[in-house]
Structures are given as structure tokens and as C-alpha cells.
């Protein structure tokens, strides 16, 4: 089994309204040292092991998990016990 962890973030050009809102909430909690907050998505996919898995992960990310107009992603593939 493989565990694929996918991290999706908004492209820098897209305004991250949730991140902004969280930043002001953090400030109103008194933590002024926080200069920027961005919010993204995190996925864990459990795969049966097979060859060329990476190609499929790319496809799943490109066609489903992200919208390339606004988001980018990276992932890591880990061995699952």
C-alpha cells in the first residue's frame, strides 16, 4: 500500500479571502507576529501498490483535486505499513 499526501494551495495571484480572514482573527487574538496566512487543502489517498502510480496521481491531481486556473499542488508518496 502507498499513502499519497497531496497539498493544494492557491496560486499567488488569486486572492485568498479565507487566509486573510484567518490572519485578522489571529491578530485579534493578539498574535501580531503572524505576517501572512494562507489556506489550502490537504488530501490523503491510500493506493494499492502498482507500477506507474505516479502518472495516475498526476492525473487525479490535475483533473480532480485541483483547478489549474487557480491552484497548484505538490505531493509525496509514502510507503504504508
Amino acid at each position: 500500500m502507498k499513502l499519497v499526501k497531496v497539498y493544494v494551495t492557491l496560486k499567488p495571484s488569486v486572492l485568498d479571502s479565507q487566509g486573510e480572514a484567518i490572519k485578522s482573527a489571529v491578530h485579534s487574538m493578539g498574535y501580531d507576529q503572524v505576517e501572512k496566512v494562507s489556506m489550502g487543502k490537504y488530501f490523503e489517498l491510500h493506493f494499492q501498490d502498482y507500477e506507474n502510480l505516479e502518472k495516475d496521481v498526476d492525473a487525479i491531481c490535475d483533473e480532480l483535486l485541483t483547478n489549474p486556473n487557480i491552484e497548484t499542488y505538490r505531493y509525496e508518496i509514502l510507503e504504508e505499513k
Partner: protein
Amino acid sequence: MKFAVVNFPGSNCDMDLFYAIRDGIKQEVELVDYRQTSLAGFDGVLIPGGFSYGDYLRSGAIAVHAPIISEIIRFADEGKIVLGICNGFQILTELHLLPGALIRNEKGRFICETVTLQVENTDTPFTNQYQLGEQMRIPVAHGEGRYFCDDKTLQELKENKQIAFKYTENINGSVDRIAGVTNKQKNVLGMMPHPERAIEDILGSDDGLKLFQSIINYQVRVNN
């Protein structure tokens, strides 16, 4: 004309759209299940608002993998009428049949309001019954309706006259106040506001009727 209203799990404005066609402009209309694989016999396809697949992941993202989608793409490619409203618009951008994306409203909150739209292009199958610059009162109801595209795309939208409607007041933070866009060929329209909720005076406005009448008018011209 015969319209298909495509129903995805979680669509919830399907009947509103159905009635707008049946009672509003008195045309033939059928609900089509997302598992269907053919739209043969229909002249136009309408994708209703709602929360397809619960809006999970991103609004519209999961619907894009339903069986009916290839037929919607065929319709778009063949120059047939494709209209997506609200969640339908989100689906069309996820499908890349329309440029840009719809992201969370600027203030982060869902907005249900009747807003004023301005008609930006009357030379489309969806707007030919309006006057250029005409203002209409149409309800909106969305949490992720903020139209976003990059500068280059915006430039193209302008050059190709793809912007169909703008909000007079930018309620959700959309780029250039955009409320609805077409594809280059103008046979595909996506819009966040709900014209199907504005087809009877007793509901507050019937300004949406002309949108549907435009489609009929266009089709009559095409057929002749």
C-alpha cells in the same frame, strides 16, 4: 425547442429551471439524469444551480466526472445552446468550457439578494432580447460566486465580447464585476445570478424571462 435540464446529485434548482421553461416560455423540457449518456433529440442543455455533490472539494468539481458530461461537451462543440446557472456556471468553468473560475465570495459569506445586472453584449443567443446596457433585477444566491481570471484572460474576454452580464455593484468581489460570461462562439453561457427565479412578477421580478426568450429567438433564426 426542446430543452434538457441536467440533474446531478445535489442539484436543487432543477425544478425552478424546468418551470421557467415549461410555464415561463412554454417550451418542451425534460429532466435528464446525470447517468444518461445521450442528449439526442434536445436543442439546448441547461445546467441548474444547487450543490452538486454537496459542493465537496470545489463547487462543480465532482460533477465534471459524471457520464452525461461528454454529451454536454459535444453540445458545446457543435455550437448548440448550453446554459449553466450558479452551480451550473461553476461546472462549466471546471469543465473549461468557460474561462476563469468561481471562488469564495470576497466577504466569505453566502449572499442571497436581488441584484441589478447590466447587459454587456446583446449579440448572443442568450441576450438578444435585451438592450445594450439594460439593467435587470435578478436574484443571486451563492457562497462561491466570485468570478476570477487572470489579466490575460480578462483581456481576451473583453476582446471577444465574452462578458454577458456585469453586476452594477460588486457584491462578491468578482473581477471586473463579471456576473456571466460566454465562450468565444457565444453558444455557452455561464452566470451566477438566477434568471429562472425572475420569471414572474409575484416573485419580485420577471426580468429573467427575456433571457429564455432570447434563446428561442436565436433558435428560430438559426432554423430559418
